[in-house]
């Protein structure tokens, strides 16, 4: 963990993307590995279009509070680009690692024509300027390629593990996935996970 204790991880996205599930998978895997974990969630009425943000505090020594102080994130895992930018602005710092999914979920302000969604170039530029390492992954496309868009969050989880930001690897997650998924789905999810790892190692750093 390179001396970061507690390790502060933020998983962010829009309600319905599986944000909470991912945060819990990470939490349970880390607890299984012997760490203290606290997860704090902020819902913007998640199922009704709002943003969801999970703060994870991971520590070997002690249990920490459920909210990360401003500017205190070490890793940001963004399932949605706009939410990633928002979290980066509030919790980022020059040393932060960011892994973001490229697929937008348009807020009402954009779908009703009142505002414009930032373009891919602008997003990449912003990520680059506000972090020390950043990836923008087409996780949703990868997931759709595997047959289900909802797997994007598992792809992103794989990417997180592949980046080395967590002190554990895929082995720590297998028992969790096995326990929490219906039997038939395990292989597909592991495939998605591995694709995520691959994306990060193969792609290097696109931004």
């Amino acid at each position: 963990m390179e001396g970061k204790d507690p390790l502060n991880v933020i998983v962010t996205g829009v309600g319905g993307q599986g944000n909470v599930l991912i945060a819990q998978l990470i939490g349970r895997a880390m607890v299984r590995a012997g760490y203290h974990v606290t997860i704090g969630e902020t819902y913007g009425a998640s199922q009704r279009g709002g943003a969801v943000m999970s703060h994870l505090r991971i520590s070997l020594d002690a249990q920490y509070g459920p909210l990360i102080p401003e500017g205190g994130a070490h890793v940001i895992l963004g399932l949605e680009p706009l939410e990633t930018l928002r979290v980066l602005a509030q919790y980022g710092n020059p040393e932060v690692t960011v892994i973001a999914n490229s697929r937008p979920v348009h807020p009402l302000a954009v779908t009703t024509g009142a505002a414009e969604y930032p373009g891919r170039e602008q997003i990449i530029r912003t990520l680059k300027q506000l972090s020390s390492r950043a990836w923008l992954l087409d996780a949703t496309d990868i997931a759709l390629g595997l047959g289900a868009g909802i797997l994007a969050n598992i792809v992103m989880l794989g990417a997180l593990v592949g980046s080395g930001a967590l002190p554990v690897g895929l082995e720590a997650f297998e028992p969790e996935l096995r326990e929490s998924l219906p039997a038939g789905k395990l292989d597909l999810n592991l495939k998605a996970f591995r694709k995520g790892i691959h994306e990060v190692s193969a792609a290097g750093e696109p931004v």
Partner: protein
Amino acid sequence: MASIATYAPGSDQLLMGNEAIARGALEAGVGFASAYPGTPSSEIIGSLAEAAKEAGIYAEWSVNEKVALEAAAAASFAGVRAIVAMKQNGINVASDFLMTLNLTGTNAGLVVVASDDPSAHSSTNEQDSRPIAKWADLPLLEPATFQEAKDMTRWAFEVSEELKTVCLVRGVTRVSHARGDVRLGEPMPPGQAGRFAPTSPIQFASLPAPLKHNLMHQKLAKAKELFESSRFNWYTGPEKPDLLVVTSGSGWFYSLEAVKALGREDSVGILKVGTTWPLPEKLVLGRLAQTEKVLVVEEVDAFLENNLKELVGGNLSSVGPLTFYGKGSEHLPAYGELNPDLVVQALASVLGIEKPARPSEYVEKAQALTGLVTHARVVGFCAGCPHRATFWSVKNALKLDGRGGFVTGDIGCYTMALGPAGYFQLKTVQAMGSGTGLASGFGKLGAMGFKQPVVAVCGDSTFFHAAIPALINGVYNRSNFTMLILDNSATAMTGFQPHPGTGTNAMGEPTAAVDIEALCRALGVRVEVTDPFDLKGTTEKLLGLMADEGGVRVLISRRKCALVRARQEKAAYRMRVDSERCLGESCGCNRLCTRVFQCPGLAWDSASGAARIDEVVCSGCGVCADICPASAIIREVA
């Protein structure tokens, strides 16, 4: 899949605070659990209900918190340990019974969990539940960690049984809804129901009140003794700190991290209070005597702070000069939720030092790069929500009626109609059932020249919780208003819990469904039923009901919640926009569907100058096809 009932004793599990509370109850051998759903408390009885069969216990969603508490009290009287959970508003609803139960006393342990929602993320008020402990002379515990959530709940049953009174446990969002690793203990099987066998004529009565009042005080004094040696109160820091932080609940983590962030472990001490009421006076006075400055860190009101001041006021000679900081001195806000930054700021300010700041260059860069683009996501009704359709019709009907009619609101997903999601139709929002109560009052002002039609909206779960007495009040007192019941077959906002109208109970068993329409008809009022997706029909029915000024009228707008429906059936329609026919921004439409109707399934494509369906979000309800003036939205049976 493992549940709170089956997790192995001795294992470490990542639990939500509410799950930890539930597990604590199981480890105490709870047999009866009751609640009305309310954020952030719902998962307590929710997880007990899920585990009920395995754990061999009984769990119910009660109609409201007062009945929930009464039902649980019955279990306690009969010798079964019981737990009741509610949000802060639930304490208000239950308070009438609580303020007699405290005098009555209990038999088997009875624990009441109050989960507060600081900043009202999901509430219509911001309220600190703790003062009820002082008001009702009841012991109150505040868990600060997830481990404590479990352990304190288990202990609360012991406290309750030793004192023969209710033991309150107070949580907040950041404990109840956050998750942390918890080491589990051994669940105890629930006791068998004993008998209801009063040992005296007044054992289970609150009378005679003065006598019982005195006895109640004696119980409280006993609690104070108990709490002096509780392991849930502890101190960390130097013997004679420059500053003593006194904290409870979620304040504990924030305080600990703040002291660390400022590097003041050697000069700042932290007294964590777990038994918030009655205060363990000797312990507290002992710590206060070691310092001259106190900073109190707690959620919502200055309850702990003022109680400390009161304690000090009665013991001035033994503590010496003391300055208090906290909400009273405005170092911490007296409203809104705490967060780590607020506490660091307060601590730094009291210590007279600079709070470590974020690198300013980074902050400026971040603001410049993201300031314009990050519009807060507005919450609104889901695609396909029947409420959107209902409020569209309400908006139009009120405008057409033209007499300045308005809607009195209530609590549920439809509360969002206060804002743009529901076209700003709700004009009042307070407590459960209040919309109908207010309407009952407005409806009597006609004799004083009041001419505006009043429509009270109320969800199906809210109807059973509190609106029925208000409806009967309107009928009995011949008030003039329309009650619009939004029946979407769910208690949706809090997580789709079943209720008396849905035909299933908390433990998933089929049960009799109470028929709202029949109940209203039995009151002898004019009742009509409409499908909210029939915009024209609903508007016409509403207009007709508003024009009929003969007492209370009821319109039931009935259609399943979109999310519930999505779990049960596939979409009814496949939707698309014919972009050739779409009038877009031109005179004759000006983007009615995306700009005004604003269903998230409809998106404006400025490149093509036409609306389009967002297939990922669209739920296929078909309603938008009926509002398009150009018939450009095509609806095909799926």
